[in-house]
């Protein structure tokens, strides 16, 4: 049970700042000939991040916008490779970074369930047997043959959530995704996360709803400008974070999740 599932050793990430890059062959060649070619600038997004997650833990990650929370999760998923340091992950990850990325708008909901499932790493045969279950959980049974472009954005998010969490992943990554869907679905998705947790899935959870983080997480990481500013007790992390941004008490935002 106490197995180490994620380990980050001295992870640093530099990213190119996009606005400096021309994307233009003609201009690049010309500026090269004129000797004006500038090497694209890079910016450090993650600074020397170290932590270990054990199987079954629920870790909250908080911090202001641009602190590097999403970037950190992408490094853990393997979407981005760290510039320095090492990332080790054991088990299959379900990344819920932005639900519904990967849907083909023209294709039917059923075909998209298979497409999205395969993109997430499950086999086509496996997904075929699961389609009905997923439609049921997403409450989209009547929409099986409808093209995805005809769904509302909340429905798309529900579909994405249902596919990604239908199979019990070893590690579930949630990046500000639980604010989608109506009240009923929000309740349902909370329940499902609860049940995944009880089955000892490891969860990494980014949210601006600190209440929820407080309820759900055993430990919390406060990221500030790409660095871990605090790592440990959830209450303490939230308090330090709020202090740093000069907010006395956390006020529940209108959308509870």
């Amino acid at each position, binding site marked *: 049970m106490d197995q180490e599932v994620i380990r980050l050793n001295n992870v640093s990430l530099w990213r190119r700042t996009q606005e400096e890059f021309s994307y233009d062959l003609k201009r690049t060649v010309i500026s090269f000939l004129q000797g004006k070619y500038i090497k694209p600038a890079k910016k450090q997004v993650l600074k020397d991040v170290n932590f270990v997650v054990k199987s079954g833990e629920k870790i909250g990650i908080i911090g202001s916008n641009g602190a590097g929370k999403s970037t950190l999760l992408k490094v853990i998923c393997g*979407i981005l490779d760290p510039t320095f340091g090492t990332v080790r992950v054991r088990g299959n990850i379900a990344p819920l970074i932005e639900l519904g990325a990967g849907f083909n708008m023209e294709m039917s909901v059923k075909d998209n369930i298979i497409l999205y499932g395969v993109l997430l790493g499950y086999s086509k045969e496996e997904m075929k047997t699961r389609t009905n279950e997923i439609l049921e959980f997403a409450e989209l049974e009547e929409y099986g043959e409808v093209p995805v472009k005809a769904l509302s954005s909340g429905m798309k998010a529900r579909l994405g959530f249902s596919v990604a969490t239908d199979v019990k992943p070893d590690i579930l990554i949630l990046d500000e995704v639980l604010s989608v869907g109506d009240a009923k679905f929000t309740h349902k998705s909370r329940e499902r996360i609860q049940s995944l947790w009880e089955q000892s899935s490891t969860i990494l959870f980014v949210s601006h709803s600190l209440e929820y983080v407080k309820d759900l997480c055993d430990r919390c990481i406060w990221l500030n400008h790409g660095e871990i500013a605090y790592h440990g007790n959830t209450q303490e992390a939230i308090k330090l974070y709020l202090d740093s941004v000069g907010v006395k008490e956390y006020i529940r935002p209108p959308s509870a999740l």
Partner: protein
Amino acid sequence: MILTRKKTLMMWEKLPFSNDIERYWQLLSVLVPQNLNTRYRGSFLGVYWSLLNPIIMTTLYTVIFGTTFASYFGDSIINYMFAAFTGLLVINFYNSATTQALSSIVINGDLLNKIKLPLPVFPLSMIAANIFQFIVGSLPLLIIVTLIKTHNILFVFSLLLPFSALVLVCTGIGLFLSALFVFFRDLGYFYEIATFIVWITSPVFYPSEIVPARVQPFLYLNPLVPIIESLRQISLDGTFPEFSHLMKGFLSGIVILTLGCLFFRKVQSSFMDLL
């Protein structure tokens, strides 16, 4: 002990043939139908639209150049027509496969920022969709031409040899282009010029004999030339393709594919910052 999975994964990545093949296969099995679906709006007959272009072009070439060039094709306009048609099939396959591969990584940039996927699978899926389209659309016609001209089923199978060489060439170029397009989004414009050069230097609508002897060796720098020649030898002359042509086709295919793969691997780590 703990991190076994990751370790085996890294070991596999170093081997050219591995369990990753399963993952690629799964991904291709959903991405290829998706490509075809978007292109033809779910209509299977749509694949046959892709034949409209070579058929119209063949008709035009035959009407305009047929009588002039017939003497190079055994004084037969029909032979000229078949020759133009096989050449066009090759050129069309090359153009559509490489042009679609070109943008494949960039148009999936959004997806790549959210799910970890092997990057080469996107250009490969474009090539695979074109192979499927070729097998369903063009190949039956090519087989019919071959059977009409040769009456021998054996030659039908040997069509696969130059076609495989063509696939190698297109895959290599497709990988190269898709990687370069991440950096240079105006590449399409330059690539249009390149495809024109490939088209005009391929003896599609003219016999290669009319090219001055001094220039002819340069035509063979075009990797499609030996492929077209081999295909014509099989389907029109009913001979087994000249070994040297076939060798040239495969050799350029392997060289281009290797270079394409090496380039792709070298630059792929910078992709994510630009997508």
